[in-house]
């Protein structure tokens, strides 16, 4: 989901104009300044389509209309503006099998809240069925997904992500290994082709588990993962081996993890340090630059004898 989302065409802000709707019934509550839509609700504005079973549109004062009452309008208002102006929907909430479409992307949840002035939509679900954003066959889910409608950036609480498109690098005979990421927070910055995971980031790739407080995933124009940048302290475990450092960069094409900032490698009682430690996650080869260390030969007695 992440790469496709970031590779998509640049998003435009939601167009100006009214919100089109369809439903079975519509109830107006002028005292509460709201409109309720029920039954197969469809809402559309520009290329954004939102579907659900119920919707509540809450009105607020239209700043443009208020300004118009203070100053005479400079241009003649269109018929539609003239008839709809005065109050405008500031927020609408859609509930019940919420489905969102915009371009090639879709999202689903149990409840969606659109803040019109902020141009955001917050999707939530249930513990059993969390909200999800889809692009083709790829999905991104989490406890809560905030979609910025003006930029298509995403802010996800407790995301669950599989970086599928990081798997298909050229020149590797072996089938690719999925990279699964957990974190408390994910922010997808569309324009920067960046996915920023923060707070207790855990990356699973095969038998390797990497932990760090923060990770940036960078993508190329085609949406392929190019680089994972882990910062703020990194802990890597793969089988019996453990490595630590202040920073780590994972090169998706080379499939190597480079630890820097007082890097250390712990392996069967050996402790190696150096300027830099390169871990090849597929072959499990390790390269240490300017290595210094403490080796425990007794731990390697059986090595090289074919045992």
């Amino acid at each position, binding site marked *: 989901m992440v790469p496709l989302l970031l590779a998509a065409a640049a998003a435009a802000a939601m167009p100006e104009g009214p919100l089109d709707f369809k439903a079975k019934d*519509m109830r107006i509550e*002028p005292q509460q300044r709201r409109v309720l839509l029920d039954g197969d609700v469809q809402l559309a504005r520009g290329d954004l389509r939102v579907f659900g079973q119920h919707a509540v549109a809450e009105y607020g004062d239209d700043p443009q209309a208020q300004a118009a009452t203070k100053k005479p309008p400079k241009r003649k208002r269109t018929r539609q503006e003239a008839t*709809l102006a005065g109050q405008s929907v500031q927020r609408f909430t859609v509930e019940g099998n919420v489905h969102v479409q915009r371009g090639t992307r879709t999202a689903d949840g149990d409840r969606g809240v659109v803040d019109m002035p902020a141009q955001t939509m917050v999707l939530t679900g249930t513990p059993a069925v969390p909200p999800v954003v889809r692009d083709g066959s790829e999905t991104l889910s989490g406890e809560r997904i905030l979609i910025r409608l003006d930029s298509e950036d995403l802010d996800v609480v407790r995301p669950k992500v599989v970086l599928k498109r990081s798997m298909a690098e050229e020149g590797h005979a072996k089938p690719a290994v999925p990279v699964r990421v957990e974190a408390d927070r994910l922010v997808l910055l569309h324009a920067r082709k960046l996915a920023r995971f923060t707070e207790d980031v855990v990356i699973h790739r095969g038998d390797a588990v990497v932990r760090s407080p923060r990770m940036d995933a960078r993508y190329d124009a085609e949406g392929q993962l190019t680089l994972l940048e882990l910062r703020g302290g990194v802990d890597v475990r793969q089988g019996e081996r453990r490595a630590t450092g202040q920073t780590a960069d994972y090169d998706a094409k080379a499939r190597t993890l480079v630890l820097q900032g007082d890097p250390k490698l712990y392996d069967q009682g050996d402790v190696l340090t150096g300027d830099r430690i390169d871990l090849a996650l597929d072959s499990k080869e390790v390269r240490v630059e300017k290595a210094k260390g403490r080796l425990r030969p007794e731990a390697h007695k059986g090595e090289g004898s074919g045992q």
Partner: protein
Amino acid sequence: MGSQIASAFSGVIALALVAGCGKPESPTISPISLPEDAPDLSLKGVAFARLAEGRVVARGTADRLDYRRSGGRLEATYGAATLYPQPGTNLASFGATRVVAARVEGEVPARRGTASSGVRLDALRGDTARTEQVHLDGDVLRTDKRVAARGPGYQVDGNGLFARTDGSVIQFTGGVVGKLQAGTR
């Protein structure tokens, strides 16, 4: 909105009740020429005001109003009423509301009636609604005809209407399509 239409009915119905208390014969119609279904009272160029607790709550006109004692039936043509909702009520936010219908039929005791042939509503707040026919039954106003309405921040075309005369429910039914004015940054 719909409930104001209902209140307009009430106004016209009240007028008929008041009129019904007078002599049944119309001075302009000869009793000899009365057909079997002739009204007991027929008025032309009617104007009325409805008072409640010393306050005008509705006023209106009709080109013609016929009343039959049997069943308390009334018929009005080209009726128009302006309703003044009591402050603080559900209807108050609409402001004074004018309701027009080319034809109104009703049964006063049963509090039942039908307005038809171009029913129009215009509220001071800016709400307008149009439909071909609407029925009042007790405190419920409903139609299964097309309704086109618009007002501050909305515009809707529906295939029916269900409303309570106190304004507590105003619902467009049977499939609705429309637009909501949406805020921007």
